[in-house]
């Protein structure tokens, strides 16, 4: 418990420092100036989303193979956290798009992919809300989760073939990518900070799901005991 509290406080400190670094330490960008600073968190949020949704896919497959409830808990937790990161990424992207491109939104490959992913994983959460029995809910949502994950590269390729205007990646683009070393360091710091916070929230959400499961079990056991004591005389009948 103490260790968890310490990690959470450390992560909170890290994310605040990352925010400070993005706003004040990173040098000014030549063409976009201040607005470029949103990138440090924009790209970090996408890193968080891909981590979470990748975990969700692993969890979905693992549930189908092993049938251990913990994989189902991990699946739903990862999707919820992934959707939050995706929402943040979309909002920061829209905020950046208006001053930089002159438009809020464009149907570019990456934007469209993330938007479709967002819709698909929202649907995943809605689907879970509409199925009552836990094992069936876990199985069917895992099947849907796997289909959604397989769809992501297809959405990307189809939009890429269709049209694209997103800036090409410059971060890891080699020595000529033209990124200031301080910028790279701040970017990596922000990525690490956001991924750590994502994982902490994810673990907490996972534990919550586990507790809910335990509570349901207890409730069912209590109901069964009550039913048993009420219906004891009937059992005497031949």
């Amino acid at each position, binding site marked *: 418990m103490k260790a968890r509290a310490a990690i959470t406080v450390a992560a909170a400190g890290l994310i605040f420092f990352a925010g400070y670094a993005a706003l004040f330490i990173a040098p000014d960008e030549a063409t976009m100036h201040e607005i470029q600073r949103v990138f440090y968190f924009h790209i970090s949020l996408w890193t968080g989303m891909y981590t979470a949704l990748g975990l969700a896919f692993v969890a979905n497959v693992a549930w189908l193979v092993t049938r251990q409830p913990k994989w189902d808990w991990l699946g739903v937790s990862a999707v919820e956290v992934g959707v939050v990161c995706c929402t943040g990424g979309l909002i920061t992207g829209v905020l950046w798009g208006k001053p930089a491109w002159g438009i809020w939104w464009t149907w570019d490959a990456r934007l469209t992919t993330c938007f479709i992913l967002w819709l*698909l994983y929202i649907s995943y959460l809605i689907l879970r809300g*509409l*199925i009552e029995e836990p094992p069936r809910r876990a*199985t069917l949502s895992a*099947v849907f989760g796997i289909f959604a994950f*397989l769809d992501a590269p297809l959405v990307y390729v*189809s*939009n890429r073939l269709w049209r694209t205007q997103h800036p090409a990646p410059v971060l890891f683009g080699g020595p000529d990518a033209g990124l200031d070393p301080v910028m790279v360091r701040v970017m990596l710091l922000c990525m690490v900070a956001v991924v750590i916070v994502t994982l902490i929230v994810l673990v907490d959400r996972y534990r919550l799901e586990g507790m809910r499961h335990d509570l349901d079990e207890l409730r069912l056991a209590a109901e069964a005991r009550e039913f048993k004591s009420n219906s004891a005389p009937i059992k005497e009948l031949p």
Partner: protein
Amino acid sequence: MTLARAAAIILTKELRLEFRARELLTITVVFALVIVVLFSFAFDPTAGESRRYGPGLLWIAFLFAGSLMLNPSFAREQSNQTLDALRMAPVSPFAILAGKMLANLVFLGVAELILVPVFAVLYNLSLAGIVGRLALVLLLGTIGLVVTGTVFSAVASHARMRELLLPLLLLPLLAPLLIAAVEATAALFAEQPSLDRAWLIFLAGFDIVFLTASWLLSDYLLEE
């Protein structure tokens, strides 16, 4: 019993059911026509615009009609627990799924066969010389729609509000299929009709990816 034979039996059963009731096909065709008519009121396209927007409209109509039409595929097995009976049969779950996919392919294919000529007349598009190539695009697009739609019909059949849920699950997933099918169809309706190989390959890839996934996941999908 081989997979093909089991699937064929399911297919025959679905077709017989539809032949006796004739509900699904009528509703699908009329619903797609309603979309086509409403679109023309909403946008009032000129001849040039029809050519430009026609393929998109056609596929939107198919996708919407398909997402409604695929609902009963598994939902109607729920009302009398007939799915349990099917599951008890000593055949692989994929045979049940494949039989239903084939039946849905036939239903949607027949609906398209009726709709495409009507659509061509209403939007002044000429089908002369492109029928074979258009059929290929329609087939590849419809396979993708039917494969994912049948799987999601099975997923949604266990949920509350399944009629609303199926389009919600299916339509975002079909976004890449929509783009590819519309682009391939648009290339055929252009001044110089041509078959866009890149999009055809993409459509075939979409079909293969999700057909394989359905095959791998069919055991879990239909388990008790």
